């Protein structure tokens, strides 16, 4: 049963029928999917959801597709880890990691949004899908399109690192490198999206694409035992994830699936690209664009489209926003790996590092439940930490040499008698 009602302008409220469009023709405001929730009353229950396979599609009634997904049917339902070691280090009582660094199939939460966007693209009859990306999104579009038998185009800045090109190229996508400054590349992509009859995931099907993020929020609440957390920390690039996590919580409350726990939402950015965090700290809703300069490339959006809305959600829910330096990002990546065995990408370092800073400043209370959203895998951003990890100690293939090393480590007592 589809309960999708329309696309609605977030600014003027004008409604549009469901079609591949993303901007209000009247005021240029962004469009958002709206639903008739009352149709689900008494039907969409915890029992129904629990009876379904463990994928993001167990909440399909709240995702904007008709019927069953055609792309990414296995995606989502990543682990929610109780981070007991990290709790001790941070001095907090109840801490969870939502670990989308193992999201299927390309190890980032983009698999959630892309599978919704491409399923919708198939419904609309598109044969070709596209995106403009410097990393996770490119890989996810390429992989999910390949699995669904769709042709794909990925637009990248010409000078992007080889490793990132490889992460999309392996899936047989058509990669177009564009010369020029960020703004020129960005504008060209918008022009291409307007001119060709393709599903450009973060342009003409963006309202559907963005809704995929809600599945992360639904999963957190179900995995906590049908409870909304008191505090949730999300990394911010465009700011979309922040708004969609808030929407997911509101929807579950409205449908009676969880109690209202007055969840506060917190945003995390790198200091080298922190326009939303700055606006929250300055107590203004004006987002001043910046030129991004940070190792957290997946968050490096200098003029975030959803910045205004993310700012509003953070302030309305009683949350906060923080930013940390590149050095602090690396430290936090190491801390997460060493305490919980989770190798997150730089954005994960941003989330943990900002949470740590907010715990220390008292913005995040120590005695209530906190969820940290880790959205990508560290294997994709190895260059950021290559100089920060311990190098192997080299020995000859000789037990004597190893004994000397073990003795230096104080392991003599471990020798079997």
């Amino acid at each position: 049963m589809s309960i999708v009602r329309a696309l609605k302008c977030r600014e003027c409220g004008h409604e549009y029928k469901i079609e591949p469009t993303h901007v209000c023709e009247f005021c240029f405001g962004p469009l958002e999917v709206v639903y008739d929730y009352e149709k689900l009353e008494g039907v969409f229950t915890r029992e129904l959801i629990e009876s379904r396979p463990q994928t993001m599609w167990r909440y399909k009634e709240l995702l904007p597709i008709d019927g069953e997904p055609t792309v990414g049917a296995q995606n989502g339902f990543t682990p929610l880890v109780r981070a007991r070691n990290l709790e001790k280090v941070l001095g907090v009582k109840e801490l969870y990691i939502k670990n989308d660094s193992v999201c299927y199939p390309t190890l980032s939460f983009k698999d959630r949004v892309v599978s919704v966007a491409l399923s919708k693209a198939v419904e609309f009859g598109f044969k070709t899908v596209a995106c403009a990306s410097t990393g996770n999104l490119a890989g996810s579009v390429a992989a999910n399109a390949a699995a669904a038998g769709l042709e794909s185009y990925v637009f990248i800045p010409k000078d992007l690192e080889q490793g990132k090109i490889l992460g999309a190229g392996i899936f047989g996508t058509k990669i177009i490198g564009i010369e020029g400054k960020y703004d020129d590349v960005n504008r060209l992509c918008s022009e291409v999206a307007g001119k060709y009859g393709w599903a450009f995931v973060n342009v003409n099907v963006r309202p559907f694409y963005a809704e995929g993020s809600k599945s992360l929020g639904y999963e957190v609440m179900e995995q906590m035992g049908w409870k909304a957390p008191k505090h949730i920390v999300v990394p911010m690039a465009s700011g979309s994830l922040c708004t969609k996590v808030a929407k997911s919580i509101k929807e579950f409350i409205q449908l009676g699936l969880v109690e209202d726990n007055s969840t506060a939402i917190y945003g995390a950015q790198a200091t080298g690209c922190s326009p939303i965090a700055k606006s929250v700290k300055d107590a203004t809703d004006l987002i001043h664009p910046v030129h991004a300069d940070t190792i957290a490339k997946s968050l490096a959006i200098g003029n975030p489209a959803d910045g205004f809305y993310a700012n509003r959600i953070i302030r309305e829910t009683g949350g906060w926003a923080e930013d940390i330096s590149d050095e602090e990002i690396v430290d936090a990546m190491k801390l997460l790996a060493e305490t919980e065995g989770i190798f997150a990408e730089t954005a994960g370092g941003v989330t943990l590092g900002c949470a740590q800073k907010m715990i220390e400043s008292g913005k995040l209370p120590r005695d209530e439940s906190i969820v940290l959203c880790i959205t990508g895998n560290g294997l994709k951003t190895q260059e950021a930490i290559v100089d920060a990890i311990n190098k192997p100690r080299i020995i000859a293939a000789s037990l004597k040499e190893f004994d000397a090393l073990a003795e230096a480590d104080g392991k003599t007592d471990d020798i079997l008698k």
Partner: protein
Amino acid sequence: MKMRVYLTFNSNTVCEPIIYKLSKAFDVITNIRTAEVKENTGLVGLELDGATDVVEAALEWLAAQGVHVEPIEQNVIEG
């Protein structure tokens, strides 16, 4: 082609009649759809309609005047 852009004006450009000059210099139809002007900054949502090369030249001219030009989607490139 029709191109929809956000123009951001800074304290140097906010008082200048730049959209008027644009329509005099280029054969494009300009259509302001949203605008917010403050003392030191201005934001205008503008649609430009005309031949592709003329629209592109007009956008380059705007940037050369010190106006920040962005597509209506703002950030098309994501991580």
